[in-house]
């Protein structure tokens, strides 16, 4: 009696099966999680459980690894992916205050997604446009010289854009 049916794409299952033929299959856990997140955008509990069973690594270990590394997402990204540059220049110019404003407006924390699935909030490294510090990108759009007071305006714009679209 094995685990219920697997929902991971066949090629990922094949990748794991191949890992199982190698020495120390458990050492491929992070590589497997990368693949799963690359495909589905995040790591769902169901997928983590499937990885655990296919790779024969305890589920608690899989979840421990997934929560240890900031790169792994446990929730799907929002429709609008808000990235706040937390590089040195932006930080000095008050990116932390901008971040706080986003947290308050959205009611979610860094790395989290709003309950309506609309916005997700992330920090990034230097984006290379320090002249515009502090910089925020939302999906492909770049916002420069962002002040905490502009945050709600920016969010409203995004919501409207969504309605128009």
């Amino acid at each position, binding site marked *: 009696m094995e685990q219920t049916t697997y929902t991971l794409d066949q090629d990922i299952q094949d990748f794991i099966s191949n890992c199982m033929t190698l020495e120390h299959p458990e050492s491929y856990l992070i590589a497997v999680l990368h693949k799963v997140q690359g495909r589905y955008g995040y790591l769902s509990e169901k997928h983590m459980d499937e990885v655990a069973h296919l790779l024969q690594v*305890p589920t608690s270990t899989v*979840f421990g690894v997934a929560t240890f590394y900031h790169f792994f997402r446990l929730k799907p990204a929002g429709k609008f992916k808000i990235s706040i540059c937390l590089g040195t220049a932006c930080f000095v110019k008050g990116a932390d205050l901008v971040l706080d404003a986003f947290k308050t407006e959205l009611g979610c924390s860094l790395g989290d997604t709003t309950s309506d699935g609309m916005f997700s909030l992330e920090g990034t490294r230097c984006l290379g446009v320090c002249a515009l510090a502090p910089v925020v990108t939302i999906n492909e759009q770049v916002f420069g010289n962002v002040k905490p007071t502009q945050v709600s305006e920016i969010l409203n714009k995004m919501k409207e854009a969504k309605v128009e679209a």
Partner: protein
Amino acid sequence: MKYINATIDGMPVSVLEGTTIMEAADKIGAHVPRLCYHPFLSTEGACRICVVEVEGMRNYLPACATAITEGMNIKTNSPQIRQTRRDLVELLLDNHPKSCLTCDRDGNCELQNLAYKLGVRERLFEGDRKRHPIEDSSVSLIRDAEKCILCRRCVRVCSEIQGVHNLSQLYRGFDTVVAPAFEAPMDDSVCIKCGQCINVCPTAAFIEQDATELVWAALDNPDLHVVVQTAPAIRAAIGEGWNLPPGTPSTGKMITALRRLGFDGVFDTDFAADLTIMEESHEFIERVKKGEKLPLITSCSPGWIKFLEHFYPEFIPNASSCKSPMQMESTLLKTYYAEKMGIDPEKIFVVAVMPCVAKKYEARRPEHYLKENVPHTDAVLTTRELIWMIKAYGIDFLNLPDGEFDNPLGFSTGAGVIFGSTGGVMEAALRTAYEMITGEPVKELEFTDVRAVEGLREATIKVGDLDVNVAVANGLNNAKTILEKVKSGEKQFHLIEIMACPGGCVAGGGQPLVYAGDYVYPLYPELIRKRQGALYTIDERKEIRKSHDNPYIKEIYKEFLGKPGSEKAHHLLHTHYEAKLPRGIK
């Protein structure tokens, strides 16, 4: 093997290659303070309390995780080292609730003890403290992550000894927490409720669910007939609550204490252990005759049964359908005893004192109810809880006269007593099965081949013309080894005894915690051996040592049950198991 020479605190030492600084220092009486270290689990090196100074090294090194090298000059003490250790403990305390006075482990907490020993008299580092809700979904135990110091002993025991891997460290840094996968409630996890996390925890991050309130209330209720049964392993350990050496048999005092607490009847789970042997031997012989569903695997340990259901459901048909002795005794108390005494079974309140927290779970399994809302076992107390109740009541345990169990459900043979040790169920079953199969009295009563402290033993016992291949496993990682052998067909076994806890029930998750001030740890083989010794001594001194010779067993079959394996016996004394989710990873 190569010997290495080094100097510790100016004293020359010569130790085998691979010896750690801590081991070598222990040998010369330099007890380096320690916290995350546990001699029977893998080395962690997380707490850094055991740091020592090694000449030529820039930083202090953890004594538990550093092997001695040739010519090492080690200092275990200096004002700076002592200050460093004290700072480390202060930092731990700063991230710890200040609720020592009301904590379950007050007076028996390794962190508290260490803080005292190292001279922490004030809290200098006031800062943020981690906040986590108490997780009490399980009927067996409570997880209080605020008291956790991240030593990972529970994670290690859960994976290295039990092979369950339910616990892991999740998240990182300040947010790190020990919990099951997906931070699921313990009740929705693969937790088998063995309670070994409680035993190895240096603080009170894991503790049993309290049942004492329920029992006090029942004892105070004049409408209830409150009876109690005690498992074999209790008598071997309860004295530790009053600093008697481990392995001091305290059956008589325990019985008197229970009577003084106000129980209307004091019975012995060992009686039901004898009954289990009758039913299980019958089951075994039937299966051998038919040559099916072999090996037969014992079913007394509820932790093992939960493990079976999560990890090895394919072996469910092999597990004996016998209820555990606790459930057999409770069932009989609410049927046979109720009938005999003319008491409405719903007015009988059955308390079971167990060395186990999985028993609290077993008692609430839906299979074990007389009818809706009427469980066979109303409350399960651990040995620790009973010790506390006796103390709370003001009973001078050490000066109590010896008492006797009530009959008919309180008389047991030596075979019933040894159930509390690993190999005990096997030995008891062999004593009876031998005679049932051959029709001749067994020549050598003590099957010493199946007596073992180590986790795993295989033996072949000659029973008449039959070579019976048996295996005894304790600690579920050892059970895995045996079950995988069965699966691969590497060896054909007839009978397997599995107990979840290392050493058997005597070292169960509900037994007295070893006093944190001593250099003794839970799982310490010497401690387990002493408790087992008490049971084997009681067995040796019994006049009747074979379950089928128990006169009250004969009587109950004659009066009430018919014969072993009868329809009535099946209805009352047997149960069933089912595969459970989440499925564990072997």
